[in-house]
């Protein structure tokens, strides 16, 4: 992990890097269960959340992770206005860096923006989602949640269902699951399965009913309803009929299998409301583990750069 200076994607990590982050997350998970769930690891450090796309859930999780490590966290929500004014990302970031920050968490609608940024700033960069490319902390927290449940990912069969083409969560998950020895399958209509996806290391299915009963994990992706206008699917109704996790389909999955979703759910589209009641649903564990995983990422990047606070050493 000597080379880990930023967290840009799962693609840049080795299996050992991933395990080290998850191990650290496990320790922080214990901290979070204490009466005072705060450690002084990043006291005096400043982290900026730079979100070019709104996402209350993710920004809150990163915020909480920073404050549990005693770091200061600033939210810099860049609305469409700055972009419309022609302000470049570099200008925005130069301004923020001039305020002496130690880390930037960035989300942007264009793929590769965190990579571009990492070439131009001296602090560490954490990718919180770049276009349809990667969302590494989501994949890490999904893996953490699964290992917490199953003990290991080795040999587990994971099915990812839905809009693979536009999903950064799917890409990061496929990469990570392969690195930790799980088998991956994806399922969706061909309009939502990108070219050459099988070369990333997954089996491809068009019909959910042909694979659902054979897997240990069902990860349902959020359907972006705005895609409706672009002829990817004919209607939400038809989508639910072929790819929705309905009450009837719930009965088909293996008794020991679990259900995941990166949230927020479109109830009644990719999942029926009844799935909430299903005992094997890990959706709430995913949210809880998100904070521990993001703390681990900050900790390890700070450690690699030698900027941990005195107390932490």
């Amino acid at each position, binding site marked *: 992990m000597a080379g880990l200076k930023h967290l840009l994607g799962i693609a840049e990590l080795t299996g050992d890097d991933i395990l080290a982050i998850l191990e650290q997350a496990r320790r922080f998970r214990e901290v979070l269960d204490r009466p005072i769930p705060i450690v002084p690891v990043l006291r005096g450090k400043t982290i900026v959340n730079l979100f070019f796309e709104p996402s209350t859930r993710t920004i809150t999780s990163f915020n909480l992770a920073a404050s549990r490590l005693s770091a200061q966290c600033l939210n810099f929500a860049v609305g469409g206005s700055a972009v419309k004014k022609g302000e470049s990302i570099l200008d925005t970031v130069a301004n923020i860096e001039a305020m002496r920050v130690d880390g930037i968490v960035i989300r942007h609608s*264009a793929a*590769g923006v965190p990579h571009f940024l990492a070439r131009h700033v001296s602090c560490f960069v954490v990718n919180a989602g770049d276009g*349809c490319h990667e969302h590494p902390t989501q994949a890490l927290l999904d893996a953490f949640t699964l290992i917490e449940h199953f003990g290991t990912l080795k040999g587990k069969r994971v099915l990812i269902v839905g809009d693979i083409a536009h999903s950064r969560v799917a890409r990061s998950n496929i990469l990570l699951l392969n690195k930790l020895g799980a088998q991956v399958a994806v399922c969706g209509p061909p309009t939502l399965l990108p070219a050459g996806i099988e070369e*990333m290391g997954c089996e491809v299915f068009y019909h959910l009913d042909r694979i659902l009963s054979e897997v240990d994990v069902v990860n349902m992706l959020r359907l972006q309803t705005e895609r409706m206008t672009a002829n990817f699917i004919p209607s939400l109704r038809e989508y639910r009929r072929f790819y929705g996790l309905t009450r009837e389909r719930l009965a088909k999955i293996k008794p020991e299998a679990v259900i995941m979703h990166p949230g927020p759910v479109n109830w009644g589209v990719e999942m029926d409301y009844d799935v909430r009641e299903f005992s094997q649903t890990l959706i709430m564990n995913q949210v809880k583990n998100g904070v521990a995983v993001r703390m681990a990422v900050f900790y390890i990047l700070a450690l690699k750069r030698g900027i941990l606070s005195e107390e932490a050493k």
Partner: protein
Amino acid sequence: MSRRLFTGGRVIDPLKGTIKIADVLVEDGRIKAVGKNLRAADAEKIDCRNRYLAPGFIDLHCHLRQPGEEQKESIASGCRAAFAGGWTQICPMPNTVPPIDSEALVRFELEAARAADAARVIPVGCCTKGRQGKELAELGEMWQAGARAISDDGSWVSDAGLFRRILEYAKTFDLLVMSHCEVPELVPELADEGVVSTRLGLHGAPGVGEAIAAMRDILLAHWTRTRLHICHVSSAETVEVLRWAKERGIAVTAETCPHYLALTVDALNGFEANYKVNPPLRSEADRKSLIRAVVDGTIDAIATDHAPHAPEDKDKEFSNAASGIIGFETAFSVLYETLVLKKALTLPELIARLTVVPAQILGIEPPRIAPEAEANLVVLDTEVSWVLSRDKIVSCSHNTPWLGKKLRGRVIATLLGESFRVNQ
């Protein structure tokens, strides 16, 4: 009276595919004699031993940014950069701001190029007024002012009825119609569609989007009996379309560019915008198919698609960065390494694709190294290795993936008429 004597060089005749050692004497911009042991006491002597002499290159496709964006490249700076790269005649595309769609702008372009005293410009006018793809431009007036080809490069003329009229009308003046082939609905973003675009989360532009456009244009050109030229071919599917057309004797020609022959989509892995070009870099299978097509003549010529951009337009996130790279000054070296050193073509065969073939496509006199011809030649050193550094670049822009890289073979000097340049 100016006299120059090029001594002991290996003179390439790309038409015959031969090389012979000879001296070349140039007087007042014309070749006076080619032969052994020429003497001219008062002439400037250029030692060409172990070097090659070849006719000056003709670039069928490049971009200068005047009028409108002179900070990226003016006509003068572009002509000088081309000259440094061995290009003595260049066809700048008319997608400037405003676009070159009138007699006045064609004249302006020629005037500005003449003042540069370097490469000569062969103007290309727009097919449609304002390059809007809606109304036929004044092709006859542009022809009269000196245009030899037309193109709406940068966009495809989507309207098939209008493209038919363009082809028919262009025949009046024997203007070559050059087409940038791209079905816009199939090209949402500039990355070849496949496993690399999927990995990177970029929405792909499949090679078939280029081939479909080429097929329509070729069928219309055949039907209207007009000569058509397909620009910057990048995909294996387009090569198949061209092969199909040529087997049927359809009058279509095509070019590809050095970067499609040397690089693949894998270069995009770091989201480095200097690899963003339009059409995009494609797979290794496409690259191999393009090389085969250049070798067997399915693709006739090689053009640079020199596309200068300011740093603020290129040093950006991939999706928003401008597409295009500069190419004049690296083309020969990249092609020499990719095609000649890897034994796909001999040096005379490569030179043919840069000189006589483009001349035939444009319907102009091919440059030759022979007595009485206008002086129009380059000196090549194929032994030398060199590193492309910023301070060596003559172009106003520096957007090239070869910056800082080692290149093999180099254009040492270029001569056109009385204009002479030696690269340091």
